[in-house]
């Protein structure tokens, strides 16, 4: 049986203990470590003797943003799949996390079994996405299309600073969404579940999950140069909580 090694990064000791316990209660998961700051996390990740498969990270850490930990983990451990611990799962924070390399998010008020279930689902290829996030991604994609149609004049359209990745340091290129991915996103934005979408589109749930996974990949910054670019931008990002 494959056992996934999990690193928990959460500054609140009680919450950190809750997540550590939730991981430990699952036989398929193994708690690699639990730390409370960006510095501790990066130090642990830099230690070559440590390996990690799943990163559970809170965004609001005392010495910086959890996004830095996600980027660092992706750089140091390419096979690591980060999951963001979010209080509200709000679209701004989640989207920023996805762009940093996260493959999903988990609510702080989730039950222990939901936490382990989410981790295992992610490892199996399923990533969650809320209707709000789907709508934001579609909206951004459409504005990109309008921008391309208008030609290479970024000054001609105002960047939406509320959207991560659309500010003055936005990525120069964004990979296009396929028509099927757009349809899936549109249905998610209308509140349909993966199963309902699969039924409506006469495909399997796994296919829908693949679309979402691809979407995550397209949104994430997974190349080294882009990571360096993002790292330079990191100081400009607001502190997430």
């Amino acid at each position, binding site marked *: 049986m494959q056992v996934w090694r999990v690193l928990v990064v959460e500054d609140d000791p009680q919450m950190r203990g809750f997540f550590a316990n939730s991981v430990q209660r699952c036989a398929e998961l193994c708690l690699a470590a639990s730390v409370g700051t960006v510095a501790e996390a990066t130090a642990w990740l830099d230690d070559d003797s440590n390996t990690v498969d799943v990163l559970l990270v809170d965004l609001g850490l005392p010495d910086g943003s959890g996004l830095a930990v996600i980027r660092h983990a992706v750089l140091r451990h390419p096979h690591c799949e980060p999951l963001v611990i979010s209080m*509200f*799962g*709000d*679209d*701004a924070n989640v989207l920023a996390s996805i762009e940093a390399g996260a493959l999903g998010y988990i609510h702080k*008020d989730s039950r222990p079994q*939901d936490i382990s279930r989410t981790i295992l689902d992610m490892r199996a290829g399923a990533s969650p996405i*809320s*209707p*709000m996030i789907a*709508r*934001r991604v579609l909206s951004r994609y459409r504005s990109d299309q309008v921008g391309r149609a208008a030609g290479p004049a970024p000054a001609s359209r105002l960047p939406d600073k509320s959207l991560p990745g659309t500010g003055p340091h936005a990525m120069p290129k964004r990979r296009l969404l396929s028509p099927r991915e757009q349809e899936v996103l549109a249905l*998610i*934005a*209308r*509140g*349909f*579940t993966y199963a*309902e979408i699969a039924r409506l589109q006469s495909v399997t749930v796994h296919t829908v999950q693949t679309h979402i996974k691809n979407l995550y990949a397209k949104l994430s910054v997974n190349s080294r140069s882009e990571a360096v670019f993002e790292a330079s931008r990191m100081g400009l990002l607001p502190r997430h909580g």
Partner: protein
Amino acid sequence: MAEPGRVDSTSLRAPTPPAQGLWAGLRRLLRQLVAPVLLCLAVQANALTLELREARASVTIQGQTKQLAVQLPYHWDRVHGGLQGAADFELPFTLAELPGRPYGLYVSRLGNAYEIWLNGVLLEKNGDMQNFNGADYAKSPRFVDITPGLLRTENVFRVHIRVDKGRRGGLAPLVLGPLDEVQRRYEHDYRWRNTGSMVVVVLSLLVGGVALVLWVTQVAPPEPGQAGRPEPGQMGRPKAGQAMGRPLRDRLFLLAAIAELSWTVNVGDVLIETPPFGWPWWGMVTIAATAVWVCTMALFCIEVAGWGRHPLVRWLGRWILLLLVANPVATAAALLYGYPLALTLWYAALGLTCLALLPVFMRKALRDGSIAHRMVAVALLLNTLVGMRDIYAFRVSATYGGTTMLRYSSILFGLALAYVVIARLRFTSGQVRDLLSGMAAQVKAKEIALQTRYQRVETLAREQARDDERTRILRDMHDGVGSHISTAIRQLQTGKAAAADVLHTLRDSLDHLKLSIDAMNVPPGDINALLANVRYRLEPRFLACDIRLTWDVDLLEPVAAMDASAMAQLQFMLFEAFSNVLQHANASTLCVLAHPCETPWRGVRLQIIDDGCGFDVDQPRGNGLSSMQQRARGIGAVLCLASAPGRTVVEITLGSVPSGGAVVGD
């Protein structure tokens, strides 16, 4: 008409006109004193040139012919005032030796129509010798070539003239001599009388035309003080109180134009031998033009001096108007009825007016006048003096030939006038420029003020939006999180509630908080997004309660009437409806439908249908349903409830619904 056959041998000398007695005596005295000197000079200059002044005249007036011995010049109007007629002058002369080179004859004035004969040979003829009041050939000096073969030792010139009444007809002395000498004298005379007049005409036309164009195209200058530029000197000021851009013409330009154009007619007359209509009407026109010139120049001086509002000027204006009206009467009396004294008196009145105006104008010019004022003063002084000289020379003394000097002195007037017009134009242009720059500054100030006001409005709008959002969040907290937490506290304090109930209350609280956060990003009117969020947040709880959810939601057009606040209210209603199902319905299936609603309103109809135990819609538990009712009424939605065991329907219709249209019950 000349009648050479009738000779009155009793009249040997020309009669002396009564008004001329004194002047004739003076002239004779002057001639006796000065003539020998001039004669000596002339002889020294050229002893061959003859000036023939002695003649035998045969004068025919009204059919009566008289023989006279006359001295030239023969000024017909002075001798036969108010009469027309003809005269035949015979001027014999002797040459000591016959000339071997061409000779020329120069006469400074003769006519109005004439014939010149030498030794029985017609040298030149101009005009109709039979009919009066036609063309006038007395305006220009005359020169005739004489071939040497025509001259003998004993010679006689015969000159026939036809003279109109009051038209300065007559005969000037005949000057005979070598061609080049006589021609030089002729050309000198011609230049002064004709070429000079042409120059004056062109200049006057130019100045008058420009002034007229400026007057016609002129628009209102800005109001004094608006442009902030002081007026130069004592120049007449433009009329105030008119809006910029409206036609408001400066009277100064019009006066200048009229003066110069009328002067053009007067001076140009010397160049017109055949006038457009006959004598004396054409004469009346030219004299009237002179009158208009003098009067408008007087008014122009008043304008330049800035006396436009002086009370005495009103009287002066009336006097000038009277002079203008009197001019045709005096001219008619002189030219039609043979009373030249009437015209002389009119000229005298005009001259005295100018003489009276002159010192006052000069005094003001010297004390505090502008450059333009002083230029006009000098021109006025010179022209008045020259004009008086001309009046004396042509109306009082018996001068015949020559030309008026006023036509040349008037050039100074024209130049002064042009300067004033240009100065006024520059002044007005400066005012316009200043006004435009002032307007630009005002526009800029207005723009700044507008921008400031806009920023204030924007700030107020932002503050208002912030207040609205704060109010909304407070209400959400009060109705949602706050209410749930206080319920949980009560549950814990009483000790009666089970842990599951408290947990449920707290989960409600957190879900509500999440929905409130979601609501911040839901676009106004997007019912799809709102429903999707509610489902996303509550679905785990449906799953936990083992309630199967059926989702039948169309792609909906945004509902225009649903703003952010209304969306929050709708979200609360949906949360309340779902929460009721979760808590009380004991349902196994929940169906959510959302479809466009075409009738009776264009909007959206939402239905939440469960197969739970139902409840009495008339006596609902708690205040959740009444709260939903209030919220529905607040956002203009219609809320319908229908409940029976096994089927409860909550229907919310959104769109263009009259306010207060909420309905509860079925």
